[in-house]
Every structure is written in structure tokens, then in C-alpha cells.
């Protein structure tokens, strides 16, 4: 178990800057998600922490120890790869035991750890199988078991659920949260899926263009985005940004908008209605700007209708239209 410090890590591929002098501190036993669109540098950062990529500048400290110049094997970490990277020529039990065997652990410890992690990830019946005889979800479990078996100081996960189909992904997500909570390992988790990050992480670091745009609890990221990018990347549908006075943007979540009586709010012309069951999603225009509204429950609204909206004042997030940064939140 150990805390991580990323100290001024930057990475350039030729003239392309992948990471720009990035700082990040992860506490012991904390689960931090690196969230961002593809190409934002999140995977590069993870690979630098793992030692699979070398940083152009900066240091990585794991448990207070500078590991910047150490090879991956000497960093005391484990990793779950996007394509699982389960060794196809080894049986499940040998895959799980691989790290411990390489570390020349005692036979009894290896056996105990294999049994324990196999139990934890429901792999006990498959220990003698080869990966080719397993389903995608089971292979994913083997990859997680292999990582947990070495009892790493730090667990790195690179989009571990992205190759699973949607239903299985939901199951595995809950399962993973349960397993990792039990293991209590410091975890850095890379994903482009904001619901995954929200569901799993203690804190989320939103990356964009090689920088951390914002780092905070899922709730802070969701409700108080620090930049326009965070507001539009996190949440589905994303935050609305409406032009207001004095070069300001009004940021408001689709579900933080109420319908009011005619004439009492902003006129809103509905163009699309999407009944999703738990909520009804409206897309339309207000004052020539596109707005999306999420109403709880089911509503019968015809496309083309005109409604009146009122954003909840306490949920409005004011942004600087020029810089995209959040402004000091004065009353709107």
C-alpha cells in the first residue's frame, strides 16, 4: 500500500506534446480515475507510472520512493491491460501465479494467493483451463486476479472494461468496485467512460490536451465543473452552456432545469423528444441556442411545442465565455 506522487511529468513525442508538466498526488488506498477523451494523454500517463514509457521530464514517486528510472518489475505495481494480456500458453492458475513465481515467492504463499484471488473473482472452477477456453469476462477476471495476487502497492488499470459488452460491463463494474474495496489497493484507473469513472472512483482527474483540467470527487466534478470542457465531457447529456451577459456563459445540467407556467421563464421550442423511461429528454432551442432538458419520469410532449424553462439558480455554473474557466460563483 502506498501513495503516489506525480511530480512535473511531461512527455513529448517528437514535436507533439502528450503531457504537459503534470502534477498529481494519490493518497494511500485511494482510487483515482484518469478520465478524458482519446488522445488526452491518460494512457501515456499510466504507462509512464508503470515504467512502460519514459517521461521527458519529471519524477514518479511510489510510497515515497523515486521510481522514475526503475524498470516496471522493480516498481512494486501491477497492471490490468485493456486487452487483458492474459498469457495464452499458461493455464489460469499459472497466469494468476505468474507475478509471485517471478518474485520467487514461497510455494505456500503462491498457493494461498491463487486460491484467495480465484475465490474473490469466481475463477475457482476454471483454474486448470487455458485462456482460450474462457469468455471475455472470465479472461478479464483472470487479468484482475493476476494483478491482485501479487498484493501490489499500486494497481494500474487501463480501460479494463472497454472490451466487454454493455451488460457485462455493468456487472463487472460493480464486481470490480467490491473486489477493490476489499483489497484496499491504491488504484489508478484510466477510462474514457465518465459513468465508469463516476461509479468507481474516490476522485476523478479529468485530462484534456495533456493537462489535468480538474481533479475532485465525482460529485464536485459533476456539479461544479472547473472548465467548460469538464462540464461538456462529464454527464450524459452534457451540461448546457448558454450565452449570457458580459461575456459570461451560463452552465446548467439538463436535469437542473424545471418547466414553469407560460410566460414565467425562458421560451423553449422543442424539436426532439426522447422518452427514456426513467426520464424524458428534450432537445430544442431557446433564443437561438440549443438546449437539452432532462425531465424526470414520462411526459407526453409533442415535438414543435413551446415550453417555458427555469434553471434552478443554485445549480447554475457561470463560466468565462472567452477562457472557458469557471468564474467566482456570484449569484446569477
Amino acid at each position: 500500500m502506498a501513495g503516489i506522487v506525480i511530480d512535473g511529468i511531461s512527455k513529448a513525442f517528437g514535436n507533439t506534446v502528450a503531457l504537459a508538466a503534470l502534477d498529481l498526488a494519490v493518497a494511500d488506498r485511494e482510487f483515482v480515475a484518469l478520465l478524458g477523451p482519446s488522445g488526452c494523454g491518460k494512457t501515456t500517463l499510466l504507462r509512464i507510472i508503470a515504467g512502460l514509457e519514459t517521461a521527458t521530464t519529471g519524477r514518479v514517486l511510489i510510497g515515497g520512493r523515486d521510481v522514475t528510472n526503475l524498470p516496471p518489475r522493480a516498481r512494486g505495481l501491477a497492471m490490468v491491460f485493456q486487452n487483458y494480456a492474459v498469457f495464452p500458453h499458461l493455464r489460469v492458475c499459472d497466469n494468476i501465479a505468474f507475478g509471485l513465481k517471478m518474485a520467487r515467492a514461497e510455494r505456500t504463499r503462491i498457493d494461498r494467493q491463487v486460491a484467495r484471488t480465484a475465490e474473490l473473482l469466481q475463477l475457482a472452477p476454471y483454474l486448470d483451463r487455458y485462456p482460450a477456453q474462457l469468455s471475455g469476462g472470465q479472461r478479464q477476471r483472470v487479468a484482475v486476479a493476476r494483478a491482485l495476487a501479487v498484493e501490489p502497492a499500486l494497481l494500474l488499470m487501463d480501460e479494463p472494461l472497454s472490451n466487454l459488452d454493455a451488460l457485462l460491463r455493468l456487472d463487472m463494474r460493480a464486481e470490480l468496485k467490491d473486489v477493490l474495496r476489499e483489497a484496499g489497493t491504491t488504484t489508478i484507473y484510466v477510462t474514457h467512460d465518465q459513468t465508469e469513472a463516476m461509479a468507481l472512483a474516490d476522485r476523478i482527474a479529468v485530462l484534456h490536451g495533456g493537462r489535468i483540467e480538474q481533479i475532485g470527487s465525482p460529485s464536485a466534478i459533476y456539479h461544479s465543473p472547473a472548465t467548460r470542457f469538464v462540464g461538456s465531457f462529464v454527464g450524459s447529456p452534457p451540461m448546457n452552456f448558454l450565452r449570457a451577459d458580459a461575456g459570461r456563459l451560463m452552465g446548467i445540467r439538463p436535469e437542473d432545469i424545471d418547466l414553469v407556467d407560460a410566460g414565467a421563464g425562458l421560451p423553449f421550442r422543442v424539436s426532439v423528444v426522447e422518452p427514456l423511461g426513467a426520464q424524458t429528454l428534450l432537445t430544442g432551442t431557446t433564443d437561438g441556442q440549443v438546449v437539452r432538458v432532462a425531465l424526470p419520469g414520462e411526459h407526453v410532449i409533442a415535438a414543435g411545442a413551446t415550453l417555458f424553462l427555469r434553471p434552478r439558480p443554485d445549480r447554475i455554473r457561470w463560466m468565462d465565455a472567452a477562457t472557458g474557466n469557471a468564474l467566482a460563483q456570484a449569484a446569477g
Partner: protein
Amino acid sequence: MTTRRGIYLLGVVVLCAWVLVPIWLIAANALGGQALIAAWPKPLVPTQMSLDTLRVFLAIEGVGRALWISFEVAVLCMVFSVALGLPAGYALARYSFRGANVFRVMILLTRAFPVGILALPLTVGFIRLGLYDTALGVALMHTALALPFAVLVSASLFQAIPRELEEAAWVFGCTRLSAAWRVVLPLAAPGVVATAIFAFVISWNEVFAASVLSARNRTLTAYLLAVLADSPLTYQFAGGLLLIVPSVGFIFLVRRHLFAMWGIASR
């Protein structure tokens, strides 16, 4: 559809005949005795099959020894090709370095260079180095011929092994070398065996360089060329059959993996 299928089947038949008819002719002439060689048309299955010719052939002075030298040279060539070809193939597959593509083409170009032009300087050079007329000398020459295939086949083998597997091995405690040994090599093993056998076959079949670079210690091919030129036809056929059988057998064993050479994924 039926015409396409017909053309396809015709192609299969022609290709099979292309390979099988000469083999059948050699086998029939080697096993069928003196009478069959003169006979035309030849019976599909020789009436009097006998191994007498083969037995007499094997008893000819020097054939056994040449067979042994052929084996020695082929094994050496196989070892060298694998030992040099695997690291080169790994480098091509895993690293992007300046001149990688030029290197690839140069490897192939060594095969375009006619051995005939090289023959004299090579002989002189080998005599100076003391390699002339030795199994090692011929094996080195054969390695030069087999190496391009070894490099390119193993490059495509390693390319087919996901890099993530190696990275996982590094993360879980392997050095670069032990990751190659524990993860990459086991996965590439069938292909490596195929590469080795292919190098063996190239050496086994090669006759020109082997004839030029040796005088008394000849491989079977060179020996047959030199000694059996004036022997009765039936013995020449027996020698041919003896040469063909191992290579056909080996190629048959590794046939699937040779597709890797053309970049077709094989399992």
C-alpha cells in the same frame, strides 16, 4: 457458380499434378527396377516393387558418408539460421529503427545475388580461412541462403504476438530477456520450429554451393552430382528419391507455419 467451382477444381488438380507427377516418376523409377525405366507408358503402380535398387545404392562407396555430411551441414545451417534469424526478426518486429525497411529489402536482395558469381571468390576465401571442404564452410554458405527466410518469417511471427503480453510480463517481474524466454518464445515456438526445419530443408536440397565449396567431404546432393553422373539411371533415381523424401516429409510437417512467411496469420 459451377463453372467457377470447375475452374477451381481444375487448378487444384493441375497444381497437385505439377508436384506429384515428378515425385511419382522418380519413385516409380527408383523402385520399379531396370525394366520400368525403359517402359512407356509406365504402369500407374509398378508391377514389381523392390527396394533392391535403394539397397544397392546405399551400399555404394561414400553414399552413407555423404548422407551423414548432408545431415551435419543441414543441422549446422538450421542452428545458425535460428540463432541469427530470431534476434534479427525480433528487432524488425518490435523496434522501429532507422533503415528498418532498407534492412528488410537488403535481406531479400541477398537471395537475388547469384551464387555463381560468388563461387570463385568464396572458394578462394574459404581456402584461406581453412573452411574449404569442411561441413562448417558449406553450412555457413547455406546459412546465408536460409537466413533471409528465417529473419522474415520470425519477424512476422513476433509481430503476431501482442506487445501487451510482453509488457504484462515486464510488469509482473520479468526482465526483457526473461519475458522473451517465458512469454514470447513459447508462443512463437511452433513457428520457430517451422523456421528451423525450413532452413534444414534449404540446406539439404542445395547443390551448387555445396559442390563448389567441397572436394572430398561432399553433401549427398553434391556427391550424387559428381559420382552418379555416369551411373545407371536406376541408381540416379534412387539417389533422387532419397533426397526428396526427407524434405517432402519435413515441409509437410510444417506446411501451415510456412504461411507466416506471407504474413498470413496461422495458428
